[in-house]
């Protein structure tokens, strides 16, 4: 019984430490620099705590731009163009989309079952959905 309690506490501690710590979106938003009209902005966020210990790198066109951390978000500004977001655990999941000038896109990360490790994958969501879900997330910063 004691062992179970210790194990549960340990798992809880690991789970909590794996979640994002930082300013919430509402606090951070006023500090965000205005988006230039020449570029587009991409928000990456992971609203769920499920599989928090799994936090893969987020690669944008093969360049690391951050980590998919539970309850965390970050953003980047990029030139208009075609982009591919990839997250790798035991498999690589990809999301491709077009970014236009002045456009804001929201990429939400979720986790699905895997064999050894869960698969973290990105989805392109509607701006209104993204803006609503990101409110509970904390800024994890640029890499």
């Amino acid at each position, binding site marked *: 019984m004691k062992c179970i309690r210790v194990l549960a506490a340990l798992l809880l501690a690991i789970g909590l430490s794996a979640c994002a710590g930082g300013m919430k979106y509402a606090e951070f938003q006023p500090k965000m620099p205005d988006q230039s009209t020449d570029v587009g902005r991409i928000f990456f966020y992971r609203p769920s705590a499920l599989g928090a210990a799994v936090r893969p790198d987020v690669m944008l066109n093969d360049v690391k731009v951050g980590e998919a951390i539970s309850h965390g978000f970050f953003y980047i500004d990029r030139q208009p163009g075609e*982009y*591919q977001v990839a997250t790798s655990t035991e*498999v690589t999941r*990809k*999301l*491709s*989309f077009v970014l236009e000038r002045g456009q804001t896109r929201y990429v939400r990360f979720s986790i699905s079952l895997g*064999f050894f490790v869960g698969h973290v994958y990105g989805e*392109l969501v509607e*701006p209104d959905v993204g803006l609503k879900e990101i409110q509970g997330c904390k800024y994890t910063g640029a890499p």
Partner: protein
Amino acid sequence: MGDPRMASCRKDAEGPGAWRAPLLHQRREVGDAFPSVHLIAEDGTTLDSPDHAGVRDRGASAGWPRGMAPGRFAPVVILGRVPYYGYGACRKRGVTCRLGEWKVDGRSAGRIAGERRPMVKAMRRIGHLGLLAAAALALGCAFDLTDVKYQSARLDPAAGPETAFIVAEDAPIHGAPCGYSRSLRKGSRWFAVGRLPEGVVYRSRDQTLTVECSNVFEAYLVVSEGRLVGFYLPVEKGFSPLSEPIPLAVSRQP
């Protein structure tokens, strides 16, 4: 103190080839013929103790207690030992160990079912787990095996006279790749961005549309004669057809 037979069972059950199945528990006169115990296997083979049956009293391992004078009565507990033989071992011995009948002094004392050795049980469990793991692995591999099927397509920027439309009512899309459901929102505006041999390509700023299997691709609509015939993937530059074209209820925009 509980039942001494049970106590013996518990004590002996800790070791390999545990003693089980109380067959006899009575007082007998020391010096009388000691009870004979046999296990008659399923195939009729008679197996003698001590291999498959054990004789015990309280304290002595087998036989009459030492130092006990003939003529006195002594408690005798006989417990049948369930053989821990796997099928292979039984076959090697030429007997069936799955089921047998105990006989004490030639009289039936009950039937018992044989058991496998704990190691054999554990190995079988590991085997079952292995099978499960293999199945899960196969399933896991399947995650990477499914992908949106598309053919490369060249978008001609000249869309022609059809420039835009508004979706008149919510339009569920059936037959999208990998069965993921999608729906075109009522009131969403779609603008022509080019043409494929399969139809005119439209994109929207009101609705984010993707198609997905293992990977997710942003998608534009490909419409021909008022029917949605598939999707254009702008990054992959490919056309992914629908299994069944879907009629669209739209209102035209200039």
